[in-house]
């Protein structure tokens, strides 16, 4: 450790209307260090980092870089000071190449940039940090993990000394996470520093030197990572002991609610995405779908909700043929859907929380009568849901886009669970949520199944699947590698199936 800190943030306070996002928060970072910012959704981690990256201005507090007091008014100011941020949603231009994205917006760019030179520099940096990506490929051709590498390269190319990563592993496979860790280590060895926002305990332990825990906008604790453990951190973060185990009552399974026979479907490019998919889910059962992202989960959810046509096979809901029916027909047969991309598909951001909550049952009385809406009843419904699901919103009239990710998810959950009558399709319902909200979501799934709903749960989190689901199917390249009762599921067998080995091959 060197004598002076690379970065100091002192007494940072940031207020938004109706909420204090950060209150008197301090941060200290020395060269070569990795700092983990841990906290629940809405704890103020992203706000704090956005202040550092020049997206927001702090209302109070001071920032020092290498001992000098600085004002950061824009991302460009931040960049000039060597601070760069990889946002949760990548800021890349899809139709442009990796190299073009990297040099985009550089202040000292010549009118006609020497692309060969740029490519060379990128290749050198890629090699040095083991960030493998072809500078000439276009962004839309890259996987999410590769896109993240482009974002990191972009920052290194601009000479960033302090890297801020917002939930970097939320979109990565375990393998990619490991690679990211390697990249961070290489960078810290060169004296660069990193701050990453997370709420995954394992990552804090694996990645960081120091951890700072935020709760409701305040700094709760500062710990050296080696001197703490996941249980302690979880307790500090939530302010209570976390129940990682969920209780499941023994329950009687009902009739077959959802049945797929030999279903196949194509992706957007017309290539086969699913083939020979057959399974059935009974009322009261939770059926988990595991697999590395991009192995047909998206398409599976879409065909079950009417958003995509199947190219073969049949889908039955309560023994009625619902193959290639419209989303509305499927909704009317009692199917609810928690979409994977909650912002893009789940809510209308510029509409009120109340209207978002009404978005499923606005078709029927009591919310509507002869085609006329009943605003008072919509509000009443909204108030009830906000209480029941603990949605943290200033008023029911607040636009949904002003809520935090976790509260947006609660809004969707409230709407879909309230409207659900027989089948719940949940895609990554706890992704990106904090421990408290995750537990809440999982409990809701279990409660639904106890009430007799057939639940299909798509998840990347094996622990979640094992604790919540009754049976687990593993998807690999659009095929089911095997279906296991979760009591018999172990990480080894699930892992092998996720890597493309069928259950028969394993047991054989």
């Amino acid at each position, binding site marked *: 450790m060197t004598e002076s800190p690379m970065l100091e943030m002192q007494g940072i306070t940031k207020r*938004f*209307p*109706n909420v204090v996002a950060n209150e008197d928060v301090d941060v200290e970072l020395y060269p070569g260090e990795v700092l983990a910012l841990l906290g629940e959704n809405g704890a103020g981690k992203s706000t704090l980092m956005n202040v550092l990256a020049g997206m*927001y*201005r702090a209302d109070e507090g001071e920032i020092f*870089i*290498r001992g*000098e*007091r*600085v*004002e950061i*008014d*824009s991302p460009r*100011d931040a*960049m*000039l*000071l*060597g601070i760069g941020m990889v946002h949760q949603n990548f800021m890349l231009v899809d139709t442009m190449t990796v190299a073009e994205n990297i040099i985009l917006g550089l202040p000292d760019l010549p009118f006609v940039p020497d692309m060969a030179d740029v490519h060379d520099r990128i290749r050198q940096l890629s090699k040095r940090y083991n960030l493998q990506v072809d500078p000439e490929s276009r962004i839309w051709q890259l996987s999410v993990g590769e896109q993240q590498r482009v974002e990191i390269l972009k920052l290194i190319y*601009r*000479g*960033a*000394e302090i890297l801020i990563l917002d939930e970097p592993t939320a979109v990565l496979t375990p393998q990619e996470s490991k690679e990211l860790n390697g990249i961070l280590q290489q960078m810290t060895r060169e004296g660069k520093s990193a701050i990453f926002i997370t709420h995954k305990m394992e990552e804090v332990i694996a990645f960081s030197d120091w951890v700072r825990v935020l709760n409701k906008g305040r700094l709760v604790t500062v710990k050296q990572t080696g001197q703490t453990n996941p249980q302690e951190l979880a307790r500090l973060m939530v302010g209570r002991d976390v129940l990682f185990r969920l209780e499941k009552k023994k329950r009687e399974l009902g009739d077959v609610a959802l049945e797929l026979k030999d279903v196949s479907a194509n992706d957007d490019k017309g290539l086969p995405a699913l083939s020979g998919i057959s399974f059935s889910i009974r009322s009261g059962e939770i059926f988990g779908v595991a697999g590395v992202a991009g192995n047909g989960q998206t398409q599976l959810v879409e065909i079950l*909700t*009417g*958003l995509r046509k199947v190219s073969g096979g049949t889908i039955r809901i309560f023994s009625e043929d619902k193959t290639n029916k*419209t*989303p*509305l*027909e*499927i*909704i*009317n047969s009692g199917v609810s*859907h928690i*979409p994977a991309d909650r912002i*893009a*598909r*789940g*809510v*209308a*951001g*510029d*509409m009120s929380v109340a*209207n978002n909550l*009404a*978005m*499923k049952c*606005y*078709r029927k009385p009591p919310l*509507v009568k002869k*085609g*006329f*809406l009943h*605003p008072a009843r919509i509000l009443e419904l909204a108030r009830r849901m906000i209480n029941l699901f603990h949605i943290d919103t*200033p008023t029911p009239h*607040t*636009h949904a886009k*002003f809520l935090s990710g976790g509260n947006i998810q609660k809004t969707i959950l409230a709407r879909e669970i309230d409207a659900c009558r027989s089948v719940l399709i949940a895609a990554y319902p706890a992704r990106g949520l904090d421990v408290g909200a995750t537990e809440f979501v999982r409990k809701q799934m279990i409660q639904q199944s106890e009430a007799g709903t057939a639940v299909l749960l798509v998840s990347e989190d094996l622990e979640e699947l094992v604790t919540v689901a009754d049976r687990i199917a593993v998807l690999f390249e659009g095929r089911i590698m095997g279906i296991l009762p979760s009591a018999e599921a172990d990480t080894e067998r699930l892992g092998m199936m996720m890597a493309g080995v069928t259950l028969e091959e394993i047991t054989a």
Partner: protein
Amino acid sequence: MRLVFEKRKTLSRKALFLVPLVSFLISLILTAILLAIFKANPFVTFMAMFKGAFGSWPNFTETLVKATPLMLTGLGVLIAFRLKFWNIGAEGQLTLGGIAATWVALFWSPFLPTWIVLPLAILVGMLAGAFWAGIPALLKVRLKVDEVLTTLMLNYVAILFAEHLYYGPWRDPKGFGFPGTPQFPDFTWLPRIAGRAHLGLIFALVLALVLWFILNRTRWGFELQVIGNNPSAAQTQGIKIAKNIMIALLLAGALAGLAGVCEVTGISRRLQQGLSIGYGYTAIIVAWLAQLNSIAAIFVALLIAALLVGGDQVQMMMGLPAAMGLVLQGMLLFPMLAGSLFTEYRLRIIRTQIREAQSGG
């Protein structure tokens, strides 16, 4: 000291109300400067404009005459804009509505009881407008053809078709070469209520109220809101996007078509050159300034009509170019659009200076 824009976290109600007001004042000041350059007394000119538009009963009714088509086309445009369907084809839809009404008034009259011809002309005119908006809507939902181009180009088709008719086959043989059709029989005239202001004004006012109710208080209006806001969410909730865009655009076209019907049956009583003085384009300004609120659109249309009429008066009384009305219209729009920034953002003044800091690399 530095000025920084910050996005507001919630919409400010005060700003929503104050911004248009302040913008209007700024535009008056800007115009005053311009007038001073033309050596006209700004105060006298504004008074003349105001008197021209509102100063006497006949002048006021003329303002209403100009406001009526602006209201109707403005309503049509704002329905489409709420769906983020950039309909700039109100001009063509208006024109085709006028053509269709002319067709009914001139050529169906001999075969029908007189009382039914006007209602029929209104109906057919609205259907024609709907048809003209339906084409780009269908192309958009079926083939994803960009509606900006199709709606714009169909304007030219409709306008040139109208020219062809009144210069060619429908031209009045007794019209001394004047480009226009013969006058309609009097039972097809839209009744006037004050001066030249006609029943179309009542249609517009009623329709604005009905439309507000539909958009804000009905199931269908709710669906349109969701589609306009997030089509993917709408699709996920089982809302039929293509069908709703079609219906909304047919309705939008019908409203613009009605504006055309009212112009030919209420004002000119024939199809002739100058059917529209760009109402369909000004409608875009109306919809935008009204922030896509149908009730606000009524008042904005009235304001813009007043600028048009008042501008004419300035030309006649003060020898200024008539374009001054249009200039003021433009001057009005810019501060308004710039002002809308302040409803979404707020300005912050930062007193401390950035210290120079060396960048790494």
